[in-house]
């Protein structure tokens, strides 16, 4: 199937004035032509299919919002090309706008003074939504959220959560093939986050809408995305499904063991002593394998790479030497995988 969004070798450069320091410097800058080129997005390519939910991740300043601006037609790439629904967004911004919905967390696009339903009615006219489609959409919405409590309240009086909810509903109103959600759950409480995620998921399923989600909340990613794209310093460093991501580091398991009947009363010294002796024990047994040992929550944590040693073998080794009162194994979370990628910032294929 032909992808709905094609991003081909897109690069975006900005010209930035090299600023000198101090007052004298800023006066000098007024006449300076000393520009440097900053590459915000560096040769990024991706194809996105209809109905996908793609998590677009990266640390602050990685070039996420620049890419989104190019896909929504607000910015023109320095080189490369983008096609969204068969339209080149930056050449035909208004035409492209008909095919997309955009939500910026904390920046409501609804009319501040109007009740949400009035905003929706105006949007219906702006996007030329047919009466029947509009009615069906509102009906669908009312099965997904409690519309009565929010629709007749001016946007200005809404809580941040309600406002975000309305913004998301508004962005799907004209049934666009693609919706961009930029940090939709920022600043929301846990219950509201869950509600928003549920809503996005249902709308995506119901309307087969492609969703491009940028977020720093790994909860959003875990709940919604099948595929994630990570960019750092303008370069794409990861583009694959989420299982594959955990697979990259998924061989890692965290083994936590409690070596005392009552772990709460352990002193720091005792814990550190345990840490060292466990660490020594592991090094004796597997001299070639690096197994970081740490103290967490008064327990000894061992990060085991299953590609080299089985967790069970490690447990046995520890149990031979110590009495283990409690233990549990956890998979590495998406959050820590992403953190590892950001920290390492190495290219992962």
């Amino acid at each position, binding site marked *: 199937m032909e992808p709905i969004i094609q991003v081909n070798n897109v690069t975006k450069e900005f010209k930035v004035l090299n600023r000198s320091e101090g007052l004298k410097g800023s006066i000098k800058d007024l006449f300076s032509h000393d520009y440097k080129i900053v590459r915000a997005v560096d040769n990024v390519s991706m194809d996105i299919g209809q109905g996908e939910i793609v998590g677009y991740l990266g640390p602050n300043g990685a070039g996420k919002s620049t890419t989104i601006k190019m896909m929504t037609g607000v910015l023109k790439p320095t080189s490369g090309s983008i096609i969204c629904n068969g339209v080149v967004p930056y050449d035909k911004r208004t035409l492209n706008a008909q095919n997309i919905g955009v939500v*910026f967390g904390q920046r409501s696009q609804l009319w501040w*003074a109007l009740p949400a339903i009035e905003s929706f009615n105006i949007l219906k006219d702006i996007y030329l939504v047919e009466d029947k489609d509009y009615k069906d959409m509102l009906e669908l919405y009312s099965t997904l959220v409690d519309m009565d409590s929010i629709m007749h309240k001016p946007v200005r009086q809404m809580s941040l959560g309600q406002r975000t909810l309305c913004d998301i509903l508004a962005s799907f109103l004209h049934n666009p093939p693609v919706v961009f959600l930029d940090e939709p759950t920022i600043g929301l409480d846990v219950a509201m986050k869950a509600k928003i995620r549920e809503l996005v998921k249902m709308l995506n399923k119901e309307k087969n809408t492609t969703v491009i989600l940028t977020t720093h909340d790994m909860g959003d990613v875990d709940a919604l995305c099948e595929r994630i794209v990570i960019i750092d310093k303008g370069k794409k460093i990861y583009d694959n499904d989420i299982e594959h991501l955990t697979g990259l580091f998924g061989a890692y398991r965290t083994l936590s063991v409690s070596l005392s009947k009552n772990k709460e009363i352990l002193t720091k010294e005792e814990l550190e002593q345990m840490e060292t002796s466990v660490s020594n024990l592991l090094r004796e047994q597997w001299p070639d394998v690096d197994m970081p040992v740490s103290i967490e929550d008064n327990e000894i944590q061992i990060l085991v790479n299953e590609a080299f040693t089985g967790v069970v073998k490690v447990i046995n080794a520890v149990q031979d030497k110590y009495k283990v009162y409690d233990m549990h194994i956890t998979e590495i979370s998406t959050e820590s995988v992403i953190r590892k990628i950001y920290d390492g910032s190495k290219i992962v294929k």
Partner: protein
Amino acid sequence: METSDMSMKTASKRRGLRYYFNIYFRIIAQDIKSKLSYRSDFIISLIGMILTDAVEILSFWLVFQNFPSVKGWNFYEMLFLYGFTLVASTPAQCMFDNNWNLRLVVYSGDFIKYCFRPVNLFFYFMSEIFDIKGVGKLFVGLSCIVYSWNKLALPVNFKSLVLLIFGFVFASLIVIAILNLASSACFFIMNSFFVLSLSNTLRGYARYPITIFSGALKFVFTFIAPIAFMAYYPSMAVLRPDNVPVLTWFTPVFGIVFFYISYKVWMKGALSYNGTGN
């Protein structure tokens, strides 16, 4: 792809004037409705606006108690010009008032939210606010004009009425153009408030006959910042029908050209601003 063909079809049929009028009236109808719900706020600011204009007229009148005329212009003629600027400023005040907020939304980065709708960016931004208080200006302005018209014993005929109405239309384009240009300065420079207040000061000069200014200023106020077309030139067709300056007949040209330039500058600023935003 099927979806894109469909949306292109709807997109091409929607661009008409009717579409824009419909959207505009829907938005402002809602806006006025919500504003009127704050009744006391609305009434107090309406009174404030009328008082501001009334006090200026009063000081005008006081000055003329001592000078019977300024360079051949008597009080009623000056009052006519003053009323003319007020009427010509009404569309800018009512429909383009959001220009005053542009600086703030650009600064906060909120401006980008206007870029995602399938409508003209300039239109969409301006449609957000309709300042109904501007009607106060219209009311005061028309009163001044009717009063001085009467006192000057100007003939009331079809020709002068038509000239007056056309004068209002094109003079208001100049007022809007200057406001657009001043507000779009925020796309290019950081602290642009002084440009906006400068434009207000300029508008203040528009109520004087251009003949009282010296040569250089006369040139600037005619061709560079054409405030002479906000009241003086279009009014001359009615005030001195026997002695109309040639430039009066160029009022439509100046109005349309300056409005067009201001629109282009505004749009260019808006789109280039997004390049560096965030």
